[in-house]
């Protein structure tokens, strides 16, 4: 069977006709296989959902217990039969519970990797290379200008700044699911054991990480804290909150943002970021090309991001490559994670 007869892009997302399901569908479908818990991949309203335990739990936290008709958990290394295909689940190293889904049908194996990274992350299971015939890769950072530095070095920059400006608050914009917990874990690994403060929108998911055995140290809610007491502290907040009314509760805040986009100066400046931290949960350029090579796939489908450059690179290496025109996936750092959006909190802060 030709690969494009096994998986095919459509208006609802990537459809598997012989298996009767969609992967990360953007509209409600009967059967969905979901790679990870970020809201552009994991949406509510499907009939049946197959995902890792963690992803299912995160969807329940976000959308409520009835986010789907039925759910089925799949563990890393496990396979299930769906229609005429077999789906197996492998760690993607993106966030807690993130998975690559390998779809095998008639001897052809296609790996839909969702979002992934090959860099060190103490808060989730490391990425695993899955040999396959067709590899579907993301391309969020699919330009050779994106080379993420060692995240520990970036966290050191943050801690140096906290030491240099003890009378200011440090406000770190970090996506609530995954990035925030990784940044906290890295701060702890660097030896910082003072309390770390959280924006209210991060509480549930961060507590969930702790329940799943990810130690994050002394975490406190920023709400109710006196302004003066926040001097010299670190607070994590959704990226959109760090540029709005909410920041007025902090003494002369230093605004940081943990994102792969911070590699490019103009992106940091546009957001008014004073302390860009290049920490990404997506593979950088080197990670993308190394992974593509390691899978041994002869054909590469490139989705959301900078497809052009990656497709061009694959072609110069003699690989069959094409952009997969899927719509509806973004980069989580560019989406708003505050319920209703930060600007919805129009009234003056208490």
């Amino acid at each position, binding site marked *: 069977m030709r690969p494009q007869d096994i998986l095919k892009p459509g208006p609802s997302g990537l459809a598997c006709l012989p298996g009767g399901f969609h992967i990360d569908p953007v509209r409600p479908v009967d059967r969905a296989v979901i790679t990870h818990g970020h809201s552009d991949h994991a949406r509510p309203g499907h009939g049946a959902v197959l995902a890792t335990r963690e992803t299912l739990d995160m969807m329940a936290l976000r959308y409520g217990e009835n986010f789907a008709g039925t759910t089925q958990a799949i563990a890393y290394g496990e396979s299930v039969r769906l229609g005429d295909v077999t789906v197996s689940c492998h760690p993607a190293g993106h966030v807690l519970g993130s998975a690559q889904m390998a779809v095998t049908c008639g001897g052809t194996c296609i790996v839909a990797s969702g979002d992934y990274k090959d860099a060190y992350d103490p808060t989730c299971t490391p990425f695993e290379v899955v040999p396959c015939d067709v590899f579907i890769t993301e391309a969020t950072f699919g*330009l*050779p200008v994106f080379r993420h530095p060692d995240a520990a070095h970036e966290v050191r920059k943050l801690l140096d700044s906290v030491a240099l400006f003890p009378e200011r608050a440090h406000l770190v914009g970090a996506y609530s699911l995954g990035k925030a917990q990784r940044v906290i874990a890295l701060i702890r690994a660097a030896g910082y054991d003072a309390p770390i403060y959280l924006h209210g929108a991060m509480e549930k998911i961060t507590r969930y990480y702790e329940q799943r055995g990810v130690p994050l140290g002394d975490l406190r809610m920023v709400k109710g804290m006196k302004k003066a007491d926040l001097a010299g502290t670190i607070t994590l907040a959704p990226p959109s909150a760090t540029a709005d009314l909410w920041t007025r509760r902090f003494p002369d805040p230093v605004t940081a943002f943990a994102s792969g986009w911070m590699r490019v100066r103009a992106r940091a400046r546009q957001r008014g970021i*004073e302390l860009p931290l290049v920490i990404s949960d997506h593979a950088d350029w080197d990670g993308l090309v190394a992974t593509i090579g390691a899978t041994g796939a002869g054909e590469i489908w490139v989705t959301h991001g900078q497809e052009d450059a990656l497709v061009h690179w694959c072609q110069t290496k003699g690989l069959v490559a094409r952009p997969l025109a899927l719509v509806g996936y973004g980069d989580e750092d560019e989406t708003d994670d505050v319920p209703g959006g930060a600007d919805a909190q129009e009234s003056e802060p208490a």
Partner: protein
Amino acid sequence: MNRFAELLDRLAYEPGRNNKLRLITSYFRETADPDRGLALAALTGALSFKYAKPALIRDLIAMRTDPVLFALSYDYVGDLSETVALMWPKTDDVLRNNPPPPTLSEVVSTLTTLGKTDMPQQLTRWLDELDETGRWALLKLVTGSLRIGVSARLAKTAAAALGDKDPHDVELLWPGLAPPYLDLFAWLEGRAEKPVNLDPAPFRPVMLAHAIEESDFAHLNPADFTAEWKWDGIRIQAVSGRDADGEIVARLYSRTGEDISQSFPDLLPSLRSQNPSQYKPFAIDGELLVLRESRVQSFNVLQQRLNRKTVTPKLMKEHPIHLRAYDLLSEGDDDLRTLPFTERRARLEAFIARLDDPRIDISPQLEFDSWDAITAIRADPAPAGAGEDAQAVEGVMLKRRDSAYLPGRPKGQWWKWKRDPRLIDAVLMYAQRGHGKRSSYYSDYTFGVWTRDDEGERLVPVGKAYFGFTDEELLKIDRFVRRHTTETFGPVRHVVHEADKGLVFEVAFEGLARSPRHKSGVAMRFPRIHRLRWDKPPREADRLETLEKMLVTETATEPTAIDEAAIGAH
């Protein structure tokens, strides 16, 4: 080099002056000689190399990368140095051997001596050895543009803070110092005596005035003060001295102590023009002006002469530069700064008369016996002696007769009393967030006035302002912006601006120039929010025609770079 690169990186993002100071001082504390001294040289613009051209950098990256990937990357990043810094691929050899990055002193000393043919190979080696931030800083250094919002003055102030010294002291010593400033740092760290300034024509820290308020006059006696015009030019210090070989050295300094002599070669001969047998070193505090047929030209005309790297004969002929003296700080071996102003003034008058140079004259004093009299003079300078030069009078200066020449802005000695600013009513059109303490507030405003064109009646932007309002007013404007945003483009909010819906600002400004760069064709000098006119509907705001009438007829073309802060205009 990596530590220096980190400093530049951090400075480039930091908007606050005090925070910049802290970053630089902390770098000086943690970095050893001679690297920190070379960093100080780089920040003060004291380094000069034969810079690498962008074409060379393009060539280097073309040898290492796929042209399609480079083009896509450059398109995305939008800055050549940054694109190259980010995508530079290290060779396998380099990755295996991991050679140590160069120190800043290696880079500087190599660049100073390197021939053109060796440049590509040397740059390639460094690009291989440095990380992304290091490569970015290196490319900034070799292309000769740091552009990180740090003035020479700020860097010197940060150095002074290392030893808890007064920045003026560093400024005083500065002309006698050279990179890597080992003697300066030794003094700042208390390891050596203060370096002696052997410069024959040193800068002396400038004395500045406070702006006077109506309420101040009640406490001041007119008999204690002298008055003179406040000219709308560039405040400078003109210094002449003799070096160890007996050669005369002449320099012009901006009020922040930057040597700007090379921009005004036509004035330097006048600073050397004394009869050799009677030559005396001197330091004059005065104003740079452009005079045509002995008439002072407007600031817009003078602006043509600012920030020029090369000064053409044509420019000098059409914009002849002139020094109008206010004060004499030294004459011969005498430091006059401790004398009362009236005594210095007498010395100045005698000195200027003896100098007898057509390019140097003295700023006249104004006769007055009461505050009412000087109020009248300020309100109408022309009949009070300014005549046709009234256009170039920015206000009056009041100086205590007994004032010594003190660095900085000492209390109660000198007062500046500017003429009332020009005012227009303009409509808020767009708003952006500010930085630092204002980071969450919409505090940068673009405002416009009405005009009629093919599309009918509409508002055209005429300027931007981000100060002039109180904290309380800021809160109110911020709230207005948030509630009346019609569209957002990235960080910019379009605020409602229709005939009956919108916010009117009374905007104060100092002058207007024609500007082909602005859609409206005019550019304001020092615009600020003067008053909030919540009471006024936008339809009653001013029209572009009103602004055009305010334009001085004689304004020339747009200057290449208006950077008044850098050159110290006041």
